[in-house]
């Protein structure tokens, strides 16, 4: 298989040649660190851009900016994005004695999460505020990541393969 042509980039006054495939290989099996704002999508996972460039170049992360890292990775063809703020809309029609119905928790966030999870079937994931925190092959890795980064999820589960698995039924 042929690899794409390399891109020469300069980071912290040093030149590096990077290929898209090289980045994908390097990040395979690397769990993403918590994302505070910007991210790039590599395979099924989202990474903080500085984590990726730091790992690829070996440079200290203080030597380059998140914006630089993001621009380099976008130049290699990786999609980038930004976390959306959490927004909870409540119905105006609350009734006495009834719990306040939540009519939509940032629908875009939910849709985005569903799309992200589609690529993670069979993986264990932790989710908070409709954002994927981490995805890994084992539940132990997920819990280890949460402990390491001092994060608390809203929920943890295995992304179901199909309707059957999500209903609690065993495979036929």
């Amino acid at each position: 298989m042929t690899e794409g042509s390399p891109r020469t980039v300069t980071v912290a006054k040093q030149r590096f040649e990077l290929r898209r495939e090289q980045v994908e290989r390097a990040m395979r099996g690397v769990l993403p660190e918590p994302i505070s704002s910007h991210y790039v999508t590599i395979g099924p996972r989202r990474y903080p851009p500085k984590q990726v460039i730091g790992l690829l170049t070996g440079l200290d992360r203080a030597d380059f900016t998140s914006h630089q890292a993001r621009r380099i990775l976008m130049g290699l063809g990786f999609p980038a994005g930004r976390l959306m703020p959490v927004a909870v809309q409540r119905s105006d029609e609350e009734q006495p004695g009834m719990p306040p119905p939540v009519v939509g928790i940032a629908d875009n966030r939910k849709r985005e999460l569903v799309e992200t999870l589609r690529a993670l079937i069979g993986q264990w994931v932790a989710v908070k505020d409709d954002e994927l925190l981490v995805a890994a092959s084992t539940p132990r890795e997920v819990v280890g990541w949460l402990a390491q980064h001092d994060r608390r999820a809203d929920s943890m589960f295995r992304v179901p393969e199909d309707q059957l698995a999500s209903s609690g039924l065993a495979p036929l």
Partner: protein
Amino acid sequence: MEGLELAPQACLLDSGASAVRMGVHVAELIGLDLEDASRMSLAVGGALVTGRSAEVTLEVSGQGSSHRWSAPVWFCDPWHPAFGLLGLTGFFDQFEITLAAYEEWVELRPLLH
């Protein structure tokens, strides 16, 4: 689940399950020793599994409130569902439950035993 506060387990409300069932991996994550636990062959979602029971503290939270209680949980091996199953003993016998599936909300009112 007590000992796993960082990673609350997603569960299905399953009135067809006679008790609370989870994968044995959950017991491993909280360091629960099931060596001497009572053991039983169970049918879960159409599959036969081995369940081992232990009393654990569970917590449910949402909308700014939470409730903790103690219940027997059957930790099952193998485990096929994507989530834990909250069944009659240990969950449905702890709450008065209103389920509004169309509006996608559920209300749990703890029962005073």
